[in-house]
């Protein structure tokens, strides 16, 4: 189920005064079952990049292969691509429109032309995956709390059973509890169903906690493509791009400077705790 982007560029409004190159010469392979993070400041091309992955945008040049097949070919099943690569946009609750949560989650699978039973099965399964409270399934989506709305909206995408799930800042605007719940749920699902997850986020802490690999976007190009440790080691370069490393990475670097014998490529609280306790011989 891999996606390969080969030298993909995207230009908005070509040949006009507003012409902007949002992506230039991006090559990237997304492997099966991986948890990939994408970071970059606003306007770095992240959103444009992910919209290429499910065919919502077509590259101005370059090729995108899905399962080894060229997506620009005439006979390529574009609709199938959209169902296999699920996209959860920023503030996904803004796309809810049906009178009940249940009906709204039905929208995606129905569009796939599935039988009524199959649709129902998928809807319940998806709502269960996002841990949506059962008693609210026939409530109006507009009466839900912010976190519940978002779960319902994510379920709407999951019900299409995508092999690859792309989430664009799924925690934007939520409070710490809502944030932890949504991320925790995504992580649990990833471990359980072994699906591929692509997470776009502004929170370096969240990225460091969950993903296996990070893509750093800057001015429409891939600046780094590495493990979290590998990427955050370059915190000075990240700052130049309007990004940061997790606070913990800064702490470890400060400690090194003060003569503590710790490793600098630590990105999470858990790792930092181990590293510091080791200094004092506590396990």
């Amino acid at each position, binding site marked *: 189920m891999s996606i390969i982007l080969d030298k993909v560029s995207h230009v908005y409004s070509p040949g006009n005064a507003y012409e902007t190159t949002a992506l230039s010469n991006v090559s990237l392979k997304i492997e099966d079952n991986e948890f990939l993070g994408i970071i970059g400041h*606003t*306007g770095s091309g992240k959103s444009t990049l992910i919209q290429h992955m499910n065919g919502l945008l077509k590259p101005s040049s370059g090729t995108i292969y899905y399962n080894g097949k060229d997506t620009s070919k005439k006979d390529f099943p574009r609709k199938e691509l959209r169902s296999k690569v699920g996209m959860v946009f920023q503030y996904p609750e803004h796309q809810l429109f049906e009178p009940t949560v249940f009906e709204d989650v039905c929208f995606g699978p129905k569009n796939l032309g599935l039988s009524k039973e199959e649709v129902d099965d998928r809807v319940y399964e998806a709502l269960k995956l996002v841990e949506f409270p059962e008693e609210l399934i026939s409530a109006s989506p507009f009466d839900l709390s912010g976190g519940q709305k978002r779960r319902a909206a994510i379920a709407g995408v999951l019900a299409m059973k995508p092999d690859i799930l792309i989430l664009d800042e799924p925690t*934007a605007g939520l*409070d*710490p*509890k809502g944030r932890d719940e949504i991320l925790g749920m995504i992580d649990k699902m990833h471990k359980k169903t072994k699906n591929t997850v692509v997470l776009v986020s*502004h929170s370096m802490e969240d990225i460091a906690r969950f993903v296996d690999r990070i893509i750093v976007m800057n001015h429409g190009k891939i600046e780094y493509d590495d493990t979290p440790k590998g990427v955050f080691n370059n915190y000075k370069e990240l700052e130049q791009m309007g990004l940061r490393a997790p*606070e*913990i990475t800064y702490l470890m670097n400060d400690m090194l400077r003060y003569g503590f014998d710790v490793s600098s490529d630590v990105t999470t609280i858990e790792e930092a705790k181990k590293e510091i306790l080791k200094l004092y011989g506590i396990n």
Partner: protein
Amino acid sequence: MGIIKAKDVSYQYIRRDEEDNIEDVNVALDKINIEVEKGQFICILGHNGSGKSTFAKHINALLTPSEGTLWVDGLDTSEEDKVMSIRQKAGMVFQNPDNQIIASIVEEDVGFGPENMGVPTDEIWERVIRSLKAVDMWEYRDHSPNKLSGGQKQRVAIAGVMAMEPECIVADEPTAMLDPLGRQEVIEALHQLNREKHVTVILITHYMEEVVDADKVYVMHNGKVSLQGTPREIFSQVERLKELSLDVPQVTLLAHELKQAGLDIQDGILTRQELIDSLPR
């Protein structure tokens, strides 16, 4: 009396059905007592639905207490003829940067408040210039707000409030929809106004990093003030904050976990430097 004083302020949202019968009563504020001194930088924390936004709207007299009294610079917000002077004294910045900018050009938006107050034209211009410069947005004065970043839009909104020359700015989650860079810009702008123009700032947020430099912090939970104190006092209570489903800054959390593992570290660590200094050598 402080610039803002809330005494036993309660507020209920009442939902009625079609026949005007009461269907549901939701207590959003429950006997709130808060007093803010002139020139302070105050933070109010709390998860969504804790009542913090409802309280913010009270300071601007957009809502008035169901019970209790709230004074802004000595004026009772329940008295209708005081509403305009209260709104002028306590300006408000909202969460969504797009939905509070009225004009299609930055400078005209900043002038909107003074226009409503009936300020003479020449003075409106002086205020607009001063306010835009104070938030470092002067060079964007003739831009369309649609072309600005989130952080820039929020700074325009702050300038719009500053142009009304308020005593106090209430910012209701002004950074919730911004990226980290924008968040930093907005928080810095608020601190700068507080420092240089001595404006009282009440910042409502759930980002703990934004709270560290405040003079005083109130934590709201289920419509009540459940914790109050300096940032250090608040962040010494990591377990309690977790119960209230709130975060603590990463460094504070690490320090707390190290202490629990047996290291001799003080409570309420707020910065990296403090943590390094308190590690046993």
